[in-house]
């Protein structure tokens, strides 16, 4: 456990020392929203209604940029070799990678979402539930993304392989994440909202349980 804590702290140090990475991610996230808002100029009544979809889709697009090199650095700089020799389980490592990816990539976007919400005229009552759905749903994106990243571990040229494989896995998260907020916007707080939230939490829980196992298996397969 001591060693996994050390690795986790090193990962956090590593991801947060790439300041440009998450600053550009936040800028890209804001830019997508800003551009679409400008595109929908003159249709201000539509914007608050489509805002949840806009925010979720933008977050997924931004995250795709960060998925590619989650494990590749460690594969090419020999870190994975060292951990394998030192008997660090790939399961533990994938878990650490997924959590640190969420902290470095999803959390900053969730934090600036209230500002983004103002930009897209999102009702102030919807902003907090929006953040809650993001907090519940985005871990699934990170965990599934890490699994996808392990698939392209040893491929120097991978193009669109990973997005094509993992995009379908993002659909349920998108459906329930947007669905919960649509219920809230159009019908107010009702049971269906909480049901959709529970389903979203279920998907995140399943991703947290199974994706690191799959990642570990895929990474190991690269060695065998």
């Amino acid at each position, binding site marked *: 456990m001591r*060693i996994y804590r*050390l690795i986790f702290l*090193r990962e956090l*140090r*590593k991801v947060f*020392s*790439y300041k440009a990475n998450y600053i550009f991610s936040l800028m890209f996230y804001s830019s997508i929203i800003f551009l679409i808002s400008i595109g929908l100029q003159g249709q201000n009544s539509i914007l608050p209604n489509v805002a949840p979809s806009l925010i979720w889709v933008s977050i997924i697009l931004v995250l795709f940029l960060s998925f590619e090199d989650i494990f590749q*650095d*460690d594969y*090419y*700089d*020999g*870190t994975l*070799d*060292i951990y*394998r*020799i*030192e*008997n660090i389980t790939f399961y533990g490592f994938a878990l650490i990678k997924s959590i640190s990816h969420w902290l470095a990539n999803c959390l900053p976007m969730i934090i600036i979402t209230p500002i983004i919400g103002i930009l897209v005229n999102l009702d102030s009552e919807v902003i907090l539930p929006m953040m809650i759905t993001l907090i519940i749903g985005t871990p699934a994106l990170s965990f599934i993304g890490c699994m996808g990243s392990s698939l392209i571990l040893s491929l120097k040229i991978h193009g669109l392989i990973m997005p094509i494989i993992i995009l379908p896995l993002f659909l349920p998260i998108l459906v329930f994440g947007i669905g919960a907020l649509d219920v809230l916007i159009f019908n107010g707080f009702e049971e269906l909202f909480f049901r959709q939230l529970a389903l979203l939490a279920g998907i995140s829980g399943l991703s947290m349980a199974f994706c690191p196992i799959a990642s570990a298996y895929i990474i190991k397969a690269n*060695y*065998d």
Partner: protein
Amino acid sequence: MTLLVKNLSCYLSGRKIFSDISFSLKTGEVLKISGENGSGKTTLLRAISGLSSFESGEIFINKKEIFLLGHNAGIKQNLTVEEDLEFWSNFYQNEHDDKILKKLSLNSKIHSQCRYLSQGQKQKLALTRLFCSNKKIWLLDEPFSFLDEVSSLFLLTKIENHRQNNGIIIIVSHQNLIKNPDLSINLGDQ
């Protein structure tokens, strides 16, 4: 402690890398592996360390005691030398020696990010991890690469000390710096 390799053969995509390699090393012994580029020296080291699979043969080794110094030493470009040293000394629960840093002229680079280090300095940083590890079996793949003369001599002294402290060393090197290995294998002869 003994390291025993019996009839080890390795093929990659149907091409023979090496075949029927056998040797045994006892504590305090050094094996030098040589051979031309592509003759399978690194693959042999990776097979012994358990990183690469092989077609046939057996390896008897205490895996907990292995340290592999390969071409890539797990150095993170955007962490500083100090952060790297701190991580590995906590990892191996063994304080790194400031005298070694001084000897390898790394002490002045302690606050530099690893991306700004030269290849030689990166190799020295990898060596500090080796000295910090307290492992008994050293698998060294071209450890003298990029090193200046002073650092090469320092490494030679460390290898000799490790040998005298009952360590086992397998060294892949094109240079003839290891003068009296207990065993030599030339994979180019295969």
